[in-house]
């Protein structure tokens, strides 16, 4: 596609945004006195801010560009990532898990694992997580720079260095508080920057009905029933009837239960935002409050993809074509920005896009420096130092976390397959982790050995399953079947992912139970108080009015998401 020309007003908007981002870091720098201030925001963040940051930390490259791409490729079924996946998981983490995370006073997810299980389980999680965050942040940076190069013709190296320096400065100065505050700023920018795009697209196509009608040829040309792009559940009875190639069981169990619960309940990147909340009540409400805007996000990130593919078919070739002749779905949002927005709003849209990449990066870097400093440095390298020492280490970790991300961004330019491979490995680690947490929080008898070897089993089984299956139309290699033969063919990569997650989770769940029953725990009931459901006093919320209670909010959220599922059935 031709490079888009930015005008003075577009640059002005971009510069205003950068000034505010850096200014927030600058103002907050004098509040960073202890390591708790730097890594946990002194546990003083109000609910609404923690909630929006909880949402925004995850709004990185993968979310905005990836969800729009899936919207174009699979249609509204993509919203299952929200309506079956994220929202129920967020309600679960708020109601059932936050009391343990926040109540245990653990400073990180790996630290909770040490309190509940043992040192090796924590070490395993801390190290894989630290590596994973650096690579995710690098991927975010790479995607941003690649996009700016493609759309604006900006120099790749300049974009990488510039985005790295900005994120570095504001986290270095203001720690987690700065990252959280900027994530909230970015949240509003993303909403207000993308909304005009969606409104113009819908108006152009004749509203939702117009869009649905124009998606019929998209679906029929791919060999599906005409409504396949505009119904989320109707075509889930068999894998062959929908473009994702999954049926309802794989969807609900794989995506909904294992992958989404695994991500939202155990990934420190998001959980850290709730841990920084000012009180137990605020921490419990954080994910619940975040769920309300989250359930409407498909309109902002998936709908543009659907609009782009409808225009692509209707107006002839809007999206650039890849080498194999299929449209490049990743370009859905940039192409729409260039298609509809004049100078002015174009600057706002691009700023929103950059904001999303930066918040993804910053989220990873703040999670990294905490886990590095508390769970690796303080635990294994230099225990027993002064708090000042660890605060300094936090600053240093921010710097080398960013340097590591830049290195990862460059690694991505040279070894695309290695990045795919790494993401796979992380998926193998994350899916079983949710089984470990479920058993850890709700089954007193689960032991450290059980947790550790269960996790390892789950990870190995995930690799085995992936290595012995293949999505249709793929060559053996990174996509699977690297262990020689493909024992089973899946209709799509998505189906293979979901089933890998289900298998890994089940393996970890069963192995952890079996090994726990064979070994004896090293923790007494006293050690486990506040960490395990049956040994922790229930929070009754009697002092709150019924409508103020987290459980009421959680039920309301689930009710709303049920309605959305029915409307777009």
């Amino acid at each position, binding site marked *: 596609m031709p490079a888009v020309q930015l005008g003075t007003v577009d640059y002005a*908007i971009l510069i205003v945004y950068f000034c*505010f981002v850096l200014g*927030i870091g600058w*103002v907050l720098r004098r509040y960073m006195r202890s390591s708790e201030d730097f890594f946990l925001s002194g546990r003083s963040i109000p609910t609404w801010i923690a909630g929006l940051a909880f949402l925004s930390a995850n709004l990185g490259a993968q979310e905005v560009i990836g969800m729009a791409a899936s919207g174009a490729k699979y249609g509204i079924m993509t919203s299952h990532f929200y309506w079956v996946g994220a929202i129920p998981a967020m309600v679960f983490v708020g109601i059932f898990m936050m009391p343990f995370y926040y109540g245990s006073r653990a400073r990180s997810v790996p630290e909770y694992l040490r309190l509940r299980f043992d040192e090796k389980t924590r070490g395993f999680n801390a190290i894989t997580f630290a590596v994973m965050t650096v690579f995710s942040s690098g991927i975010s940076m790479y995607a941003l720079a690649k996009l700016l190069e493609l759309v604006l013709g900006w120099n790749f190296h300049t974009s990488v260095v510039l985005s790295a320096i900005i994120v570095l400065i504001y986290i270095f100065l203001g720690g987690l*508080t700065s990252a959280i505050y900027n994530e909230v*700023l970015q949240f509003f920018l993303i909403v207000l920057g993308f909304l005009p795009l969606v409104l113009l697209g819908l108006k152009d196509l004749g509203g939702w009905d117009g869009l649905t009608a124009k998606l019929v040829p998209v679906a029929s040309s791919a060999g599906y029933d005409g409504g396949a792009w505009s119904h989320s559940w109707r075509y889930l009875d068999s894998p062959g009837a929908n473009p994702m190639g999954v049926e309802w069981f794989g969807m609900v169990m794989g995506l909904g239960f294992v992958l989404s619960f695994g991500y939202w309940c155990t990934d420190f990147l998001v959980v850290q935002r709730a841990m920084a909340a000012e009180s137990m009540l605020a921490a419990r409400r954080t994910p619940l409050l975040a769920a309300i805007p989250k359930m409407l996000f498909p309109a902002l990130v998936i709908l543009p993809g659907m609009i782009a593919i409808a225009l692509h078919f209707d107006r002839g070739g809007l999206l650039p074509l890849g080498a194999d002749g299929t449209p490049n779905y990743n370009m859905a949002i940039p192409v729409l920005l260039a298609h509809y*927005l*004049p100078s002015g*709003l174009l600057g706002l849209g691009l700023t929103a896009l950059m904001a999303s990449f930066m918040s993804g990066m910053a989220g990873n870097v703040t999670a990294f420096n905490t886990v590095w400093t508390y769970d690796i440095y303080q635990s294994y390298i230099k225990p027993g130092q002064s708090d000042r020492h660890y605060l300094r280490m936090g600053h240093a970790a921010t710097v080398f976390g960013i340097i590591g991300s830049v290195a990862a961004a460059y690694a991505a330019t040279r070894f695309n397959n290695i990045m795919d491979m790494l993401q796979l490995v992380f998926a193998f680690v994350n899916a079983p982790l949710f089984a470990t947490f479920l058993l850890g929080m709700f089954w007193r008898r689960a032991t450290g050995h059980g947790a550790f070897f269960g996790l390892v089993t789950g990870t190995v089984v995930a690799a085995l399953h992936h290595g012995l299956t293949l999505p249709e139309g793929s060559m053996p290699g990174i996509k699977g079947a690297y262990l020689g033969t493909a024992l089973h063919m899946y209709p799509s990569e998505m189906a293979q992912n979901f089933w890998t997650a289900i298998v890994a989770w089940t393996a970890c769940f069963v192995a952890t139970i079996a090994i726990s029953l064979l070994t004896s725990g090293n923790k007494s009931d006293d050690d486990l108080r506040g960490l395990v459901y049956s040994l922790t006093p229930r929070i009754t919320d009697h002092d709150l009015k019924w409508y103020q209670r987290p459980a009421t909010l959680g039920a309301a959220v689930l009710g709303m998401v049920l309605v959305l599922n029915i409307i777009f059935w």
Partner: protein
Amino acid sequence: MNLDLRLPIGWMFSIIGALLTGFGLISDDMIYARSLGINVNLWWGLVLLAFGLVMLGLVARTRRGRPS
């Protein structure tokens, strides 16, 4: 918390909103062909400006309510 986050949000969106509104008033109508003939800079600029001012208004109300 030590910094009221509504303050920078309010200022940022007021400034960007004012920029867009101003640009919408002086810009050539030609550029709005792609946005279906609507002067989106003017209208969306006003929306952002209103959002920013509401945020600033909330800050001001909190400050008045609290004796200094």
